[in-house]
């Protein structure tokens, strides 16, 4: 099976997540990581509540997987990042999940991972952060 056809699903056992405007924060308590998902990443994260492949997701963003190979690869690469961070797991082949009622508008998915949550928690969120970016970004 092509990698783009591998299906993934959220594995939320160790995850806590919350939307903050357009940003999705995901804490992996088992690994002690804090991740910020922006752009199209929160939408992809939501879609993975059902088992989906990169090809499925590309279709849901309105792309033809046969013509938009670059986009499918980009989504597949992002799904690998989610796997690496323990957010999703591969699932056995099965029936395709139904599409959501509304198509999604595409924007490039981005993820920023902070690997030491305990270090972040020591930062004073008002006084020891970059004033432009806010916690958890340290001042330059």
């Amino acid at each position, binding site marked *: 099976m092509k990698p783009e056809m591998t299906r993934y699903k959220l594995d939320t056992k160790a995850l806590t997540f919350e939307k903050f*405007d357009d940003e999705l924060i995901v804490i992996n308590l088992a690994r002690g990581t804090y991740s910020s998902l922006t752009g199209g990443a929160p939408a992809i994260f939501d879609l993975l509540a059902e088992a989906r492949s990169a090809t499925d997701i590309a279709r849901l963003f309105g792309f033809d997987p046969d013509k938009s190979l670059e986009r499918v690869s980009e989504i597949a690469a992002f799904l690998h990042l989610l796997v690496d961070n323990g957010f999703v797991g591969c699932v056995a082949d099965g029936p395709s999940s139904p599409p959501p009622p509304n198509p999604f508008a595409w924007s490039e998915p981005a993820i920023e991972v902070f690997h030491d949550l305990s270090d972040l928690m020591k*930062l004073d969120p*008002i006084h020891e952060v970059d004033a432009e970016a*806010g916690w*958890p970004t340290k001042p330059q």
Partner: protein
Amino acid sequence: MTLPASEPVSETSPLEPRSWLGSLTAAWPDQGDELLLRAALCEPTEARRSWDEWKSRNSLDDATWEDHKLLAVVSAQLHHLDSGFHDTRRLQGLVKALWTAAQIKQQASLGALDILIAAQIPVLLLKGPAFDLAAPRPDRRRLSGDLDIFVRRCDLRHALGLLAAQEWRQQNYSLASQLRYLRTRPGINLTRDHGGDIDIHHQPIHLRWMSDRTLARLWQRARPAFLGERKILIPSDADLLCISASHGLRRRRQVCSGAWAVDFHHMFTASHVRLQSLPEIAHELGATLHVLSALLFLQRAIGTPVDADLIAALKRQSRGVGARLRYYVGTPAKNERDRRNRRRLQKFMEARLTLLSYCSGPFFSIRHLHGKAP
């Protein structure tokens, strides 16, 4: 229509001394908290005015932990209130930091629930997390990860023993020394590594000894709920308001905070909440004055739609001397003399509480009170 923070409650019947109802405001949130509450909860024009006033008098740099909790509620409205706020990113960062800390703490605190549930000890969840289950709000982020739980008096000793065996302990004092004061305090705070933090209560109301019969009725009114897939109980809506009012309208050191008002406002604006029994239950729990004060604050300062009949019923029942003294002890002192008076009164009330608790029968054995266990 809202009143400025300093304006006293003015509606009194001819039989009610103005000073008495007016004195309820002593436990209301301070002016800074009130402005933040209005910014978060009032209609848009008043919300914007209050937010501008808060900004003109305060800075994010000097905000306290109590302010942080309210700023988090305000931040959810920021794009309506003040889309050009210069410190938006820092405020959003603060909210994310508080939320993250709360998740870590709550996850660690849930371990205590697991211990009690495994031992088949019924657990009643109190305060903030119970409000989230009673009147869920998608726009409300709970930023406090500690858990307030209530166990039956007969289970307290077993519960504390189980928790102590799993390294739950008192942070600043030995657990044994704290047990000496357990008769006069509604509960005890326990912490554990990785941020676990619980308050385990045996009495729902400060400085009031409740009979086993009253407590049994509170348990009977409780309803099942799930917290992180754990089956627990939450108080009835009326019990929850009474318990939270008695905890919320109390000074912490010399300050009364306002975070309780957000939960109360949501309860009164949620369509499914039933509060007809509130006056009777408040009377039964000895929380009439605290509930009355909370509702007057909501009605007058925030404009929350509180039923006038409810207020009238609470006023009729709020003549007990004990309730007034408990309310007075929880208000900030104006000066040193005032502080001494409160201290004396509190000591008297604690002595009475100890006596009542001994009259009610065994609670902790001498062995426990002398620090040998749990």
